[in-house]
């Protein structure tokens, strides 16, 4: 273990092609000569960091998508500071995401792009696709909460009684540590004891230790949440469940999921304790797309991205679905 001085994460080569406030748009260097015509934009959650998809070189979803010929972009939301506490969901969806989509469109010379949203980033992508369907060729959602009225997830149960106004009015931005404490509280015995016992038992295995440390870094690398956006997300989604009812508004515009008519792939994890399947599955019935598929992966919320078994399924299935839909009709 002493030999490990530093761990490498998010190593797939990329460049920053657009910046706005704290946001950076990463463009990954293609690994094939000719990429598919429709570019792919990954929208990650505001909670934790986007390099989960590129955590270790041999289990990188980003690298796999590049090797399959996709022209790949990903949003890095950065770390909100005190000055960002007034940012709303409207700023994130109709501001940042819309600006980034336009940059990607301009750079690739296409009229539409593919959106791939992860977790809360998936919820944002769904909101965006409902409000700006003219810009979205395909939509892929990964472990994305849409219907929040379920007793299967502790976050859903705990958020119901939370006085979010008091939290945001007092804290401004909601600290990453606050959310981390909640996540740890979901399974304290496993996450605070068993995990580290397991680590102690395998400390001689350098690769295991490296991967463990990478994951540990990701888990505790938690940006604060912009206060106003957090307030509306908890109130309108977790407490009032407005999104699935087509009653949620951002920036004065109603989000009607029936406006989503492009091809949609909805991927969920069967043993997800953060976003239970009951929360993800209803999207497929709520939209008006004719071309839509749903894919269940036998893993948990995080395992879907880094688990060795799911790695062999998730990416190949996405690629199989997306490739034929990434062409432009002339």
């Amino acid at each position: 273990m002493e030999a490990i001085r530093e761990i490498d994460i998010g190593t797939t080569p990329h460049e920053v092609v657009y910046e706005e406030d704290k946001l950076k748009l990463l463009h990954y260097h293609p690994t094939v000569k000719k990429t598919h015509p429709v570019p792919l934009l990954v929208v990650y959650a505001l909670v934790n960091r986007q390099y989960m998809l590129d955590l270790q070189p041999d289990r990188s979803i980003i690298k796999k998508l590049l090797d399959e010929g996709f022209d790949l972009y990903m949003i890095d939301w950065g770390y909100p500071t005190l000055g960002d506490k007034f940012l709303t969901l409207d700023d994130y969806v109709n501001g940042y995401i819309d600006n980034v989509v336009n940059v990607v469109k301009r750079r690739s010379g296409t009229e539409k792009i593919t959106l791939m949203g992860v977790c809360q980033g998936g919820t944002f992508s769904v909101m965006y696709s409902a409000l700006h369907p003219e810009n979205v060729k395909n939509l892929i959602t990964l472990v994305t909460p849409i219907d929040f009225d379920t007793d299967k997830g502790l976050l859903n149960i705990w958020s119901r009684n939370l006085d979010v106004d008091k939290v945001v009015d007092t804290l401004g931005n909601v600290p990453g540590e606050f959310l981390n404490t909640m996540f740890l509280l979901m399974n304290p015995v496993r996450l605070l004891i068993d995990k580290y016992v397991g680590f102690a038992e395998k400390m001689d295995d350098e690769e295991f230790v490296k991967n463990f440390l990478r994951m540990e870094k990701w888990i505790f690398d938690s940006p604060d949440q912009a206060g106003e956006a957090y307030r509306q997300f908890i109130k309108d989604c977790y407490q009032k469940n407005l999104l699935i009812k087509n009653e949620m508004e951002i920036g004065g515009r109603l989000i009607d999921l029936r406006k989503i008519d492009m091809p949609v792939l909805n991927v969920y994890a069967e043993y997800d304790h953060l976003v239970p399947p009951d929360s993800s599955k209803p999207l497929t019935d709520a939209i008006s797309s004719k071309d839509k598929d749903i894919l269940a992966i036998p893993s948990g919320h995080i395992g879907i991205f880094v688990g060795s078994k799911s790695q062999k399924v998730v990416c190949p299935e996405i690629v199989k679905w997306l490739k034929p839909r990434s062409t432009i009709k002339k």
Partner: protein
Amino acid sequence: MNKEFFDQWTKTQEETLGRFTKDPLLLGPTRETSEKVLKNMKASLKFYGTWANFCLKFQGPSTTAMEELYNQTADMMKGEVSPGDDYKEFYKRWIETYEKTFDGFLGSEEFSADLAAFVGDFMDFKKGHEDLLEDQLKRMSIPTKGDLDAAFKDIYILKKKVKDMDSLRENVDGLSADMVSTKNDLQKAKMEIAADSLRKKVDGLSADLVSTKNDLQKAKMEIAALKKKMETPSKKTRPSKK
């Protein structure tokens, strides 16, 4: 600490220190600050009470899990004991028993309400504490969180305005480009129309010219014919001198 003791402790706090926090007879120049201090004291007492209650609630499932594990361990200890294997088995059962017991506890509506109360009371306590601190900072002319918030809000609004204006400018730029293009098209069309009109005029003039030329030609021919005719009868009508 059992529930009865905790309830009694809370009651005693309310009846002793808590009485000060309800005093409405605060007077004089320090009235506002004193009121805040008392309010914060009340929030502190409430928070510590909720915190203790919250921690106390964890004792229930802990005891249940411990009892369950104790029974299981007793079964394990029967017969021959193998320290290495039995330790692993014990650890496995310990984790599983606690996990299962806590799953039910953490997923209950009661825990959700307790957690919300704990977070809410902590926010009240924190806010009260910060308000007092801000008052002190203001007296020293040091910018406070409230001052920063006001500045940040102004910056947020200004940034939004700038972004809206940028977007508007882009649209106007796009419209201007369209207008220049349309103007050029219009100019071209005008020139084409003018050229067409001119061509038509020239065509008309040419036709007139041809017609005039023909008329002239005809007139010339008629004149020539007339001349000839005039010359011929003068010879015929000359009288004879015989």
